[in-house]
């Protein structure tokens, strides 16, 4: 249990998707204009990563990994399909995003309206595929660990985008040198935030 909590904290703070791996930067920079929309996108990303990482974990462990097909019979024990993982992961993500969109539309129209335009965009958010690939590389042992990892990664991403947006909203009132306005300054702020987040490294809960 403590182990899982530690995993969560580590992925939110020290191994933050944005500040340590720069994943999902494109939508992070494009959407971080108002706090409300970035909240919406953040929640959508948490949701999608928490669902897709465990599904991809199942794919990895029962389909792709060397020897993963053992459950089909001894003849398949040698098969290694891991070269297909990019294709399968991205297909799972695109399909899950579509599925989530349909379920949310049917069951929670209010949430659907809030997430609306962001859900389809998430299929090509690098953070989602990145989480699946890191899950594969780090070889998480159980599906619970994979789920906690996914939730932590998504939560860290959402936290980062909300923080950056709040700062950018305030910056509208400051006098910035013209060539630095907008994108340039957004990068520098993200860099400074990343330095701040490095202060969390080595934390053990």
């Amino acid at each position, binding site marked *: 249990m403590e182990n899982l909590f530690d995993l969560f904290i580590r992925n939110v703070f020290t191994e933050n998707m944005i*500040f*340590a*791996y*720069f*994943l*999902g*930067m*494109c939508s992070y*920079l*494009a959407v971080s204009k108002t706090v409300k929309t970035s909240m919406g996108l953040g929640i959508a990303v948490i949701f999608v990563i928490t669902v897709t990482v465990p599904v991809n974990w199942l794919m990895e462990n029962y389909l792709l990994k060397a020897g993963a097909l053992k459950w089909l019979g001894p003849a398949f024990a040698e098969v290694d399909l891991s*070269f*297909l*993982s*990019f*294709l399968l*992961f*991205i*297909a799972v993500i*695109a399909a899950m995003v579509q599925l989530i969109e349909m379920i949310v539309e049917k069951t929670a129209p209010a949430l659907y309206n809030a997430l609306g335009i962001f859900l*389809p965009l998430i*299929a*090509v*958010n*690098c953070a*989602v*595929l*990145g989480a699946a*690939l*890191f899950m594969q*590389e780090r070889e998480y042992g159980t599906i619970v660990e994979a789920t906690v990892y996914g939730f932590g990664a998504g939560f860290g991403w959402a936290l980062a985008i909300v923080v950056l947006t709040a700062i950018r909203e305030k910056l509208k009132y400051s006098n910035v*040198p*013209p*060539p*630095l*306005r*907008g*994108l*340039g*300054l*957004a*990068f*520098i702020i*993200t*860099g*400074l935030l*990343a*330095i701040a987040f*490095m202060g969390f490294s080595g934390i053990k809960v």
Partner: protein
Amino acid sequence: MKNLKLILNPLNDENPITVQVLGICSALAVTVQMKPAIVMALSVIVVTAFSNLIISLGRNTIPPRIRIIVQLVVVAFLVIVVDQVLKAYVYDVSKKLSVFVGLIITNCILMGRLEAFAMANKPWASFLDGIGNGAGYGLILVALSTLRELLGSGSLMGYQVVPDSFYRIGYMDNGMMILPPMALITIGIIIWLQRGFNRKLIEK
């Protein structure tokens, strides 16, 4: 002339990273040293050029409702080819790039150019546009990695360029440069410089 523009425009006025804000994720993570950055840049040029070409060839037959899936499959297929080639010929670099080769699939440059250009233009023009945008991306990658490797480890392409006599009189490598945050700050400064010289890019 028009074709030349397709290649040259993305290098400066419409640079995918500093102006269109596409494909930033990988640009920052692979630039600690020059070698992986150059390999990454070449891989992206290959994938953008050929995915643009393939999608442009099929642009009249792809049903618009499922175009995103079709684009993703074409891109994923090309990335798998590139990944296998890298693993076969430059294994150590491919290990260093780790997940970032796979992440070319969701590199926004690809989807951005496929949607904005290849779906509406002839194959040859799309191919050149792909090369141009890949090169614009590569240019920033190389600039960033040169700065980071030179200041952070005192070497270029893995060879030491800061002479030993400098270290003896007290010169030190800036360890900050190889950490993730400095990638962000350095690219911020590159954007600042570019917009300082090219003032029409300044945001209001």
